[in-house]
């Protein structure tokens, strides 16, 4: 069971990375406009028109 001493803190650390990612996106104002963000993801304005 000694492996737990490494694994559990490692799991927590990974979770912490996720939290930091969330906090960054929050500070980056990504939560201000959830509707627009969704549509922007699938907009294809930047593709050349199909022949």
């Amino acid at each position, binding site marked *: *069971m000694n492996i*737990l*001493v490494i694994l*559990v*803190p490692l*799991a*927590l650390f990974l*979770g*912490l990375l*996720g*939290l930091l990612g*969330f*906090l960054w996106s*929050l500070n980056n104002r990504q*939560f*201000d*406009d*959830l*509707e*627009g963000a969704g*549509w*922007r993801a699938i*907009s294809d*304005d930047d593709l050349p028109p199909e022949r």
Partner: protein
Amino acid sequence: MTMALDSGRARDLSLFVRESETGTAAMDLAVAGIKCAVCMATIERGLRGEPGIVSARVNLAAKRLTVEWRKGASSPARILERMDEIGFAAHPFSPQKLESEEAREERRLLRALGVAAFGAMNIMLLSVSVWSGNFSGITPETRDFFHWLSALIALPIAAYSGRPFYESALKAVRAGAVNMDVPITLGIVLALVMSLVETWQSAEHAYFDSAVMLIFFLLIGRYLDQATRRRTRDVAANLAALRADTVTRLMADGTVIDMPVESIEPGHLVLAAAGQRIAVDGVVVEGASEVDQSLVTGETRHVPVNPGDAVYAGTLNIGGQLRIRVTKAESGTLLAEIERLLNGAVAGRAAYVRLADRAARLYAPLVHATAALTFAGWLIAGLAWKPALLIAITVLIITCPCALALAIPAVQVVATQALFKRSVLIHAADALERLSEVGTIVFDKTGTLTLPDPSLANRSEVSAAGLARAGALAMASRHPLALAVASAAGRPPVAGGVTEVAGAGVCAVLDGIEARLGSLAFCEAQAEGARVASAYPDASLIAFRHGEEVHVYAVEQAMRADARATVDALKAQGFSVAVLSGDRIETVRRAAETLGIADWRGEFKPADKIEALRLRAAAGEKVLMVGDGLNDAPALAAAHVSLSPVTAVHLAQAAADGVFLGDKLRPVLDSVTIARRARRIMGQNLTLAVVYNLIAVPLAIAGHVTPLVAALAMSGSSIIVSLNALRADVRGDRPADARSESAGSTEVRAA
């Protein structure tokens, strides 16, 4: 920052521009007509191609646009022009300080929520291991290790994410009161301290997960509450921006500039064109005209003004251009008096105690007493003081203010959403509760029961061809009566060669014959006019002559289409309905008869309305006041709860507890119906919370509550209460796409 628009008039928009040190300037705009993602793409694409623009970003949820440009390379006026070319009406606005504070608070709560979520889930990871390990042979070392890890996670997270509760509890305690946050804070702190002590002593149970999960659930409620409130305020601010008041100022050197009304000072000279709303209090210096004071006094008859007469903000200039010297910008004599009445009335409302606070007052002492009694009881029963303390603290934890704290906000969030879909925006948090207590509904007439824009009343009497010709002529005039004729005719293309005769009307040559549109004398239509006047006594008349063809149009503010139906429905539900208006007695009597309302008063001044409401309140009646004009603002604040149609003047909107959009009166009915339903569900939730406690507390007193039981109880009760709250939205009669439809009609009026 002035550049000419196609109307030839310059516009000063410097108030709205934010400048940065890096050489760019930015501006926020509220955009009317954004319906979907295609609109968003169109706007951003259209602006990005514009020279000088650094960035253009649309916020689809808030229907706003933020544009950034290099200083000197572009300008606000050019941006507005471009938006016009793209096809969207954009109105700059400076977000009030209060608004950005709300957005910041919301982000703060979301941050705390995210951190608490991380903590709760990771501690749960460890806790479940310990719980299952307790059955399958976990060694004390491993358990201690997990407990210490939990402590490491829980302590900083509880210190950070629990801040909203600690601050609120401290504030309450310093004020000598007790709100819901006091037992919450106590519970969290005691749970953490006890768990630390237990962990130090290698005990079996630690309650770190309970403490952090408590914070997590409570923050969900808080965040949803805040987000809903902010969204309501966003929409309201957008609507205010769309109707932004600009004033045409005559500068000393003779140039004419449009300025936002906040930039006007006493002594300035402003111009008010025919058909324009006067935005300041002042004295007429030049020009003779008629003024529609219905928004201020409710009186629908026009009042003549001449040089030397005073005019007031909010009145509509009907006849011809007026040159006005500003006496008091934004706060003239009339407004100051109304505001005085307003402040007195608002103070009286602060005494209302919210349901949540009433529950908290009962809950906190009860819980603390129970825990103390448990401790004492076990001591007497012979238990050592430490286990007794442990059990007492579990009692405190298990009474879980989760369910109680979610019981009411959850319902408020759902009910506010439901109202939102039915075109009602609620400003005040406790407005729902006050709406549910209402027994009497008092309406103002002008603009509330009637539509704010005048329309053609005797359309059926006129042939379509005649109306089309009159409409073509009317399109050339800005007079409100002409506008009514033009929109009734379907806004046909404007006739060519129209000349305006000041104070009389317009004339042109149609099909070789001279056509005239204007006053009765101008069109020699007195006889016909007298006939129409007797049929439509409250209407304003505008005449049309085309050779031998003579029509007289009666233009009046029509009753809202569903006014009678709504009044009937309200009476059917047991409400008493009344009308208090500042308009002439005869007019009000006729309106009341049409609607079937027996209780009505006319020619009421603001002070009269407050007195009438005060009498009703003294008789024990709870009144919902629905009004829109300046003269209603003090009454709106004095009533038990109030609503305002969105076309209302700023002050009235600010004094009301909520606004409703669109042409229908139905939202008023929906408000009281949904509020009553929400109140019922709040009561159910409180009952559920009490029942849960009645089951859980004896279990805790008996010493059977372990962290596992606590976690299950907490989540279970919160979920049940939240699911029940979802019932606050009545599914049956939700209007399809009502929001975009009514927003559309609002924009038309705002333009």
